[in-house]
């Protein structure tokens, strides 16, 4: 994974919190990251080039004034007056490349003054235990403790993802692969898809495991959601992130959101009125 700086800009040298979405149901992590980029005082510092990412471009997704600023698949932003660095991913990875991408990403993060990685993702609400309906839809896992718990998240009333069992076969296999630099070992492994495999097979899990394997502090903030209109889920996840970040600062972080301009058409054009 290679970084290309925007002209006359460079990444900050001090330790940064690196925020990234994981591809997920409802694209919730990506929507939340778009919301944060549009709402915080951020500026683009560069691009990431990785052979695992499918190519994707578009016009500026954030501003109504059409200057035609090009957006590409993997971009890096920084908050101007704070220690937040944001990666936005707009395209999927090539089939079978998720682990390879996660290794590249965590290697890049590890080489670029990253203090902590925060991964935003949705998880399928269909997998949520029935007994939990009515409680907060936020879950987390963290490198703070071996069992995945984190006192910061517990203080916010969040629950650790119940299915995060580091000693289970699936999570151990993922951790083993995250330590490797190639996929060869898994070619000999006969993994049968089962319920136990569900969470470890998701993109957030490989990003988390690869960061953990490289000694990076990491926390995943997960939101139970369904496929559909996920804009409200993005606000919810964005709020959760800001609350989490406010633990490290005096006073709460501003919660005023600017909706990205591109969200006007995120679900396609309005229906043709002539059919009514």
């Amino acid at each position: 994974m290679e970084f290309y700086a925007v002209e006359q800009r460079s990444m900050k040298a001090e330790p940064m919190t690196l925020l990234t979405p994981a591809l997920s149901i409802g694209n919730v992590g990506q929507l939340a990251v778009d919301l944060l980029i549009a709402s915080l005082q951020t500026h683009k510092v560069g691009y990431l080039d990785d052979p695992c990412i499918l190519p994707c471009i578009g016009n500026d997704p954030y501003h109504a004034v059409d200057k035609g600023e090009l957006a590409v698949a993997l971009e890096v932003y920084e908050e101007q007056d704070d220690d937040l660095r944001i990666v936005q991913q707009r395209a999927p990875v090539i089939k079978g490349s998720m682990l390879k991408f996660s290794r590249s990403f965590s290697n890049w993060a590890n080489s670029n003054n990253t203090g902590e990685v925060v991964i935003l993702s949705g998880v399928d609400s269909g997998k949520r235990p029935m007994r939990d309906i009515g409680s907060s839809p936020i879950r987390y896992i963290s490198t703070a403790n071996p069992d995945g718990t984190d006192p910061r998240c517990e203080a916010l009333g969040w629950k650790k993802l119940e299915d995060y069992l580091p000693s289970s076969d699936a999570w151990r296999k993922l951790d083993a692969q995250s330590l490797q630099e190639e996929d060869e070992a898994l070619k000999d492994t006969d993994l049968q898809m089962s319920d136990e495999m569900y969470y470890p097979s998701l993109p957030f899990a490989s990003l988390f495991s690869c960061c953990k394997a490289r000694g990076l502090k990491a926390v995943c903030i997960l939101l139970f959601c369904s496929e559909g209109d996920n804009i409200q889920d993005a606000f919810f996840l964005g709020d959760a992130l800001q609350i989490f970040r406010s633990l490290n600062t005096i006073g709460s972080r501003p919660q005023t959101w600017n909706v990205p301009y591109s969200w006007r058409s995120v679900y396609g054009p309005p229906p043709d009125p002539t059919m009514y």
Partner: protein
Amino acid sequence: MAGIQDPLTELPPPSRLDFEELGNFTLDASSAPPPAFISWDANVEFETPLRPRLLFIASSPSGLHLISHLPEKRLLGSVVLPAEDQSDEGSSKGSLSDDGNIKGRSVYDARNPRKQSVHTCNVYALDGEHASVIMVAVQTPIAEERANTWARAVLEAIAADRVMVVTMLQREHYRGKLSADDEVIFRLETDALRLEKLGKEEATMGHDDDVPYFPSGSIVSGFPAAVLTRCQLLGLKGRLLLSWPESRSSAPSLLVTILNRFPDIQCLDFSSSLQVPFKGKSVSDLEIYM
């Protein structure tokens, strides 16, 4: 009323994500695909990388029409994209989308299942010995997964001052309304090209302000995206034109009119190509609302 679908309810577009493909334990069983390369004709005497003034890449029907009927072009070679996995045709099938990209693995051409899976695009020079303009005709689809290697090979072998890509708008990625009756051409540009215009006098800027930028919220994928991304990363002056619907015989003429609005492209003379009749691609209304 239960079970009766509401025809007025518009479902959101399906997720772009296929979780079978994204799964951490889904491995690409084949070895790393061979990279793309350019095979130069034996008569080519230029030094490589070539350094033309303009690299013009076309995959839209009108763009290909303009290139194919240029009388003075000279074939220099081909961009070759080797097959990903020649031993396993069964796993290399993809589905062809209307924008000319193959969704799925490999360069397998679903329209010609028995054909060898090597993808080639011809590379031409204009201006005779000077080769100040290089043209690449992308006549058959390039698999999305191979688009990055294709773009890298082309831009490493042809280091142009400016890059122009003309392609058809990909309607599955377009979030606005499309009409089969209204012809439209959008543009996307790299920062290097956009910012260059800011430093120029008004008289030399051309009339490109009336070529609208591609609407925010819609995206482009495949090799056009790969080329423009590479241009953006490398600080090159690149421009992408997206045309729709290319169903009229006037489509090449419209494209030439638009091209002439950019001062850096006005050197190209397509008058010969415009004299050849063009058969547009039909677009049914049903397809528009899919």
